[in-house]
């Protein structure tokens, strides 16, 4: 039994080594995509020309303006004196953002009430608008948390448990440089790990159908499960190598932090890989040609993985139906895990439920596709 599985694994690695295209798919594509996505999706906007309309005019309101200046994202071009000017400067196109500090800003802050800044943007560039309001919210949040902390420390309340500001403070620190790349890269890793294992497994099996070599293996004493293990194992190894490679690359090239446990990350990555390998196996039982296999893999694994997982669009903002479907997409759970481990450094205590779902999914997918594979190959 071992010899038979070993013979298949050995042969599979020979195919991989001999075909330069596979190597390119395994190493080239992930690195290129990581770089492309890394830059395309993390276009951090700096020095946004900004005007302030300060209706509070207090030390705290001036302090927050300084925070904006210090962040490097905003360049303060003008202080406005009346409401009419807002429209004028935005229309002129020279100023992209107007931040309005409401009256009573300082008082509310001191009382610990929730304050809001009004951020008006030039709608002609939605990107800048999105970034500007995102940064503004974050800067305000960090500032108000600092104030709360100072207040607490002054009053010796630091050790009071369950006092909300601590939680808030942590949240603002997940991504304290406000770099979207930190948020994007773990997501890119997650989606890169969908296509490659799925497509490679599926085409590796379908290719044997096309060349009728599968028929010969089925006539031989090789059992279905041996064939399956022998075919999947090499691509599991490749998946692990790929995952390590792009994680390392993300860390070294983009400087993305990894704050949590590498062990938990590795284990959940393996579960996630099994989900995708299982999908590939399933696709191989349906498709009769490599072309069809790639198409099915793209539609059933890649597309939902990109669109319905929360990678690009947050799940909460999807239509109700899409939200329901997203529960079936393994990437959804893996994204929570990988972002949690990368950015928040959280552990099993927070992530166990997501990891459990990944476990159940990988188990179900592998079982189902094994069953289907055995059923099909004994016909």
């Amino acid at each position, binding site marked *: 039994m071992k*010899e*038979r599985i*070993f*013979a*298949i694994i*050995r*042969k599979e690695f*020979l*195919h991989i080594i*001999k*075909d330069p295209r596979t190597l390119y798919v395994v190493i080239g594509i992930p690195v290129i995509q990581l770089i492309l996505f890394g830059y395309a999706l993390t276009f951090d906007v700096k020095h946004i020309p900004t005007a302030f309309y300060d209706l509070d005019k207090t030390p705290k309101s001036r302090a927050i303006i300084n925070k904006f200046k210090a962040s490097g994202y905003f360049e303060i071009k003008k202080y406005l004196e009346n409401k009419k000017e807002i429209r004028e400067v935005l229309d002129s196109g020279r100023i992209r953002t107007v931040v309005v500090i409401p009256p009573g800003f300082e008082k509310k802050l001191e009382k610990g009430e929730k304050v809001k800044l009004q951020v008006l943007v030039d709608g002609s560039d939605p990107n800048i608008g999105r970034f500007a309001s995102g940064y503004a919210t974050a800067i305000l949040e960090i500032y108000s948390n600092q104030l709360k902390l100072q207040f607490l420390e002054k009053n010796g309340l630091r050790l009071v448990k369950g006092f909300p500001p601590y939680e808030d403070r942590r949240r603002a620190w997940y991504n304290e440089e406000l770099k979207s790349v930190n948020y994007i890269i773990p997501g890119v890793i997650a989606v890169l790990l969908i296509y490659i294992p799925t497509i490679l497994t599926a085409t590796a099996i379908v290719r044997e159908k096309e*060349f*009728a*070599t599968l*028929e*010969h*293996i*089925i*006539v*031989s*004493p*090789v*059992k279905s499960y041996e064939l399956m293990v022998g075919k999947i194992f090499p691509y599991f190894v490749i998946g692990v190598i790929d995952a390590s490679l792009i994680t390392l690359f993300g860390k070294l090239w983009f400087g993305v932090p990894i704050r949590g446990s590498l062990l938990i990350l590795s284990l959940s990555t393996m579960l996630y890989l099994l989900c995708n390998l299982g999908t590939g196996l399933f696709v191989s039982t349906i498709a009769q040609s490599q072309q069809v296999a790639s198409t099915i893999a793209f539609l059933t694994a890649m597309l939902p993985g990109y669109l319905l997982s929360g990678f690009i669009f947050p799940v909460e903002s999807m239509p109700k139906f899409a939200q329901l479907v997203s529960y079936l997409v393994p990437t959804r759970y893996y994204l929570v895990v990988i972002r949690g481990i990368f950015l928040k450094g959280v552990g099993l205590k927070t992530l166990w439920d997501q990891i459990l779902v990944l476990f159940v999914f990988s188990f179900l997918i592998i079982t189902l596709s094994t069953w289907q594979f055995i059923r099909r190959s*004994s*016909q």
Partner: protein
Amino acid sequence: MSLEENFPILTEKLTKKFDSFTAVNNIDLTIKKGEIFGFLGPNGSGKSTTIKMLCGILEPTSGKASVLGYDVYTDAEKIKERIGYMSQKFSLYEDLTVDENLEFYGGIYQVPSDQIDQRKEFVLEMADLKGRERELTANLSVGWKQRLALGCALLHQPELLFLDEPTSGVDPLSRRHFWDLLNEMAEEGKTIFVTTHYMDEAEYCYRLAFIFEGRIIALGSPQEIKKTMKEKVFQIQCDQIDRAFQILNQFPQLEEVLIHGANIHIVGAKTDLVKNLIPALLKENKINLLQIKSIEPSLEDVFVSLIGREAREKIRKEFLPCEPPLN
């Protein structure tokens, strides 16, 4: 010796249906140890389906079959270990070398590691591939690929070989060489079950069966089968053979008209009709007739006449409630 040892393949009313379509219909086979048994039939007649059932990878719908003494329904795994299989497509990995292919098939058949080198040596010798172990399989010509595929099927020294159209697409010289190999193996006591749609190859078989639309329509040695032929076969030598064929083929009274090498064969027609009609027809069309003679039927003639009769019977049964008019 037990029955199973003398008869590696025994089937009784073996049948395979795909939904309502019957691909293999009540086949009885008794195949003797050490013979080359040919299974002949046109495409789609059920040859591969029969082989798949005998190899234990396709469950029959009904009937019995035992292979090397094992029941195909219950002991498929045992059968797989002891048979060799080779298909039309040769099942080789083109991106691997000759040696890597052998290594793989040795592995999946669990050839013991202390024997594998010796077996590979034997196969390379047989296939005439010595010194080319490191060559990429894709670069071999079809004839070599065919012998390598046969070698892969022989690595684990099976006593029974299933060859499903092993010679299709192979040049005549390599086919000849291949049949010589099969003959040698049969002489060593291996049993060979081989399907083909090349009629000339049938002559090399010890015994053969004609299969048509899932049923066996003739079975025996080539000589026996030829003797069953009641109808006469005429050979016509003439000019413009293609035109002559076109003309003669328009006359249903001539039954089967075939091109056979450089001649035309007329199978199943009445003697005086042939003797009178054909010279007149050819003369009228200014085709020079060289010779008409009655000959020994070839296997192809037999097969065609059988299929013709089958087809006629079928038509009579299905479409004509009364006797057809005499020709």
